[in-house]
C-alpha cells in the first residue's frame, strides 16, 4: 500500500497503489525523494490499482488511472511499477501544461545541456546511463525533454532510467548503479529500471539550456564510430518527429522548438560501444 505525494520536478505527483511492488519501486529508485504534505497542489493524481471484478482473481492485473481516466488497457500485475513509469510519461506528454515535450534524453554540464532524441533502437538509454554514471554528466531525463516555451529552459525530470534486454547487464556494472527488479515479457522485452544518480536527483530544480542536439545510433560492428554535423533545419525536421505535442501547441510549439535550436550545434553520431559513444559526446559537446 502506498499513498504518497512527492515533488517530481517540475511537477507534484500523488501516487496511490495497492501493489507493494509500486511502493518498493518508488522507495528504491527515486533517490532524494522530496515528500509533499497534504496541503500541496497536485499536478498528476495517479493510481495503480488491481483489476476489477473477476479479474481480481483470474490472473492479477494492474490498471493505471490518472484522476478517474483510464487511458490504457491493464497490464499483468507483475508489471505494476513499469506501468507507473509508462503512465507518468504518458501523463506528462498528454496533459497540456504549456511545455513542449519531446521524446529525448537530456543531460547537462552545469547549465549546458545535450538533447538526444530517441529513435527506437538507437541505444539512447544505455548511452544516457553511461554519460550520467561514467561521464560526469547530470541527468535531466532519459525519456522526456520538457521545454518551457517562454524561457527556453529545459526542466529536469529525473526518474528511473528504463533499460532493456542486454543493456540491463551493461548498466548494472556501472559504479554506483542501483538496478531494480527485471520485468520479463513486457511489450518492450526484458526491462528494468536504473535509479538516477543521487546528485542529479538533488539538482532536479536546476534548469538547463540546450547547447547540443545529438542523434545517436548504436551500430554494433562500428568500432571507430563516426559523427557528422548537420544543419539546424535538418535537426528541426528530425526532432519534430519525436515531439509529443508540438502539433497540438500550434504556433507556440513551432516557436519553442526553433528557440531551442537557436545557437545549438547538431550532430548525428554512430558508435559501436559505450566507451566510444561516451568519448564522442565528450569531444563534440564542449
Amino acid at each position, binding site marked *: 500500500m502506498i499513498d504518497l505525494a512527492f515533488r517530481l520536478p517540475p511537477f507534484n505527483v500523488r501516487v496511490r497503489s495497492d501493489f507493494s511492488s509500486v511502493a518498493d519501486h518508488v522507495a528504491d529508485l527515486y533517490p532524494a525523494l522530496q515528500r509533499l504534505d*497534504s*496541503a*500541496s*497542489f497536485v499536478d498528476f493524481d495517479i493510481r495503480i490499482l488491481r483489476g476489477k471484478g473477476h479479474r481480481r482473481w483470474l490472473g492479477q492485473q494492474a490498471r493505471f488511472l490518472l*484522476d*478517474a481516466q483510464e487511458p490504457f488497457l491493464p497490464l499483468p500485475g507483475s508489471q505494476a511499477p513499469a506501468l507507473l513509469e509508462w503512465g507518468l510519461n504518458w501523463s506528462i506528454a498528454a496533459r*497540456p501544461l504549456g511545455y513542449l515535450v519531446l521524446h529525448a534524453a537530456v543531460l547537462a554540464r552545469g547549465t549546458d545541456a545535450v538533447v538526444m532524441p530517441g529513435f527506437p533502437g538507437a541505444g539512447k538509454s544505455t548511452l544516457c546511463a553511461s554519460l550520467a554514471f561514467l561521464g560526469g554528466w547530470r541527468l535531466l531525463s532519459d525519456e522526456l525533454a520538457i521545454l518551457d516555451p517562454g524561457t527556453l529552459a529545459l526542466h529536469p525530470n529525473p526518474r528511473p532510467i528504463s533499460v532493456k534486454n542486454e543493456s540491463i547487464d551493461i548498466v548494472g556494472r556501472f559504479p554506483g548503479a542501483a538496478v531494480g527488479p527485471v520485468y520479463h515479457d513486457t*511489450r518492450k522485452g526484458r526491462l528494468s529500471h536504473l535509479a538516477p544518480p543521487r546528485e542529479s536527483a538533488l539538482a532536479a530544480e536546476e534548469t538547463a539550456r540546450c547547447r547540443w542536439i545529438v542523434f545517436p545510433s548504436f551500430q554494433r560492428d562500428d568500432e571507430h564510430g563516426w559523427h557528422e554535423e548537420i544543419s539546424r533545419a535538418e535537426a528541426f525536421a528530425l526532432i519534430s518527429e519525436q515531439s509529443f505535442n508540438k502539433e*497540438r501547441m*500550434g504556433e507556440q510549439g513551432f516557436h519553442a522548438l526553433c528557440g531551442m535550436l537557436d545557437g545549438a550545434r547538431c550532430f548525428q553520431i554512430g558508435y559501436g560501444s559505450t566507451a566510444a559513444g561516451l568519448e564522442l559526446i565528450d569531444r563534440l559537446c564542449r
Partner: protein
Amino acid sequence: MPLIATAAGSCGLLLDVLAQPSHATSLTPPQWTALLAAARAANLLGTLAARLTDAGIDLPPAPARHLWGALHLSLRQADSVRWETHCIARALAPLGTPVVLLKGAAYVLTAQPPARGRLFGDIDILVPRDAVGRAELRLMVHGWTTGKSDPYDQRYYREWMHEIPPLMHVRRGTMLDVHHTILPLTSRHRPDPAKLIARAVDTQVPGIKALSPLDLVLHSITHLVHEGELHNGLRDLVDIDALLRAQCGSADDWRVLAERAAELDLEESVGLGLHLAARHLSTPVPSEWIERLLRNRRSRRMLDWAYDRALAPAVESEEARWAGLARSLIYIRAHWLRMPPLLLARHLGRKAWMGWRARTAPATP
C-alpha cells in the same frame, strides 16, 4: 443550488467558480487540485480557464499552467475547426445545397459565448436529407471515410438515426458527423429540419451556414435531454446557460424562444432543459415559461432525482450513491424517446449481445 453537491463536492466547487470566478482567489492548493480535476472530468477546463482569465483573476503558478494549457489547446482547436470548415466548404460547395454547422463548430464560426475555452471532439453539420448521399460521396472524395462497417451499425444510422455513421478524415484524423435532422427519425418528436435550415445564418466561411443563435440554444437543449449517456452533460448545460444568458435578456426574448420551441415540436424538451439550467446553474429563466413548457409534472421529480446524480462527472470512484441507477434511468428514458418500444427492445438486446461478445473476446495486447 441543489445539484451535484450530492456527488463529489468538487463538482459544486466547479459550478461555483464558473459562476463567480472571484471565488477562486480564496482557494487552498488542495481545492485547486479538486477544482481542476472536476473541470477536466467535465470537459470544462478550457471554459474555466477562459472565465478566470477574462475576470482578471490572479492565479497561483502551478494551477495556472493547467489552465493556460487548456486555453491554448482550445484556441488551437478553434483554428483547426475553422480550417476543417474551409475544407468542408471546398468539398461540398459544388453541391449547391445548404450546409449548416451545429454545436461547437457553430459557436466558433459565429462567435457565440460558449466558444471561448471550449474543447472539441468533432464537427457536426446538417444537410437536407435528400442531399446526404451526394454529400457523403463528395466528402469521401475529399478524404473522409467511415469506420462503421458492420451492416447493423450502418442500418442503425441510416434507417433510424438523425445522422450517418461518423466520418474520419484519413490524413488529419478529424471527425465529422453529418446530420439530416436533429433527432432520430424514429423519435417521438419531429422537429422539421427545413425550418432550421431556413433560419440558418451566414458564417465567416463562404458557403457554410450555422444554426441561428436561437436554434443553437434549442438544439443544445434537445441534445442534452435526449442524450442517454451524459458524458458531457454538465458541459452541455454550461453551454446552454451561457447561450441563454446572452440571448434572453427581456421577457419578450423568452416568449420568442418558447414560440420557436413550439414551432419545432420541442416544447417538452426545452421545458426540461430550461428547468435543468435554472435548477443547477441558476440561469434566470422566468418560472412561468418552465411551467408552460414542461407540462408533465408527474415525471419531474423522478427526472430531478436522476439528473441531480447523473450530471456530475465521475471524478473519483467513490462517486455519489445511486449515480449508476440515475444514469441507467436517463439512458432508458433517452432511448424511450428515441425509438418505438419494439425497435427499442431489439436495439438494446443487440447492444447487450455485442457488449457481451466484446467483453468475452480475447483481449488485444
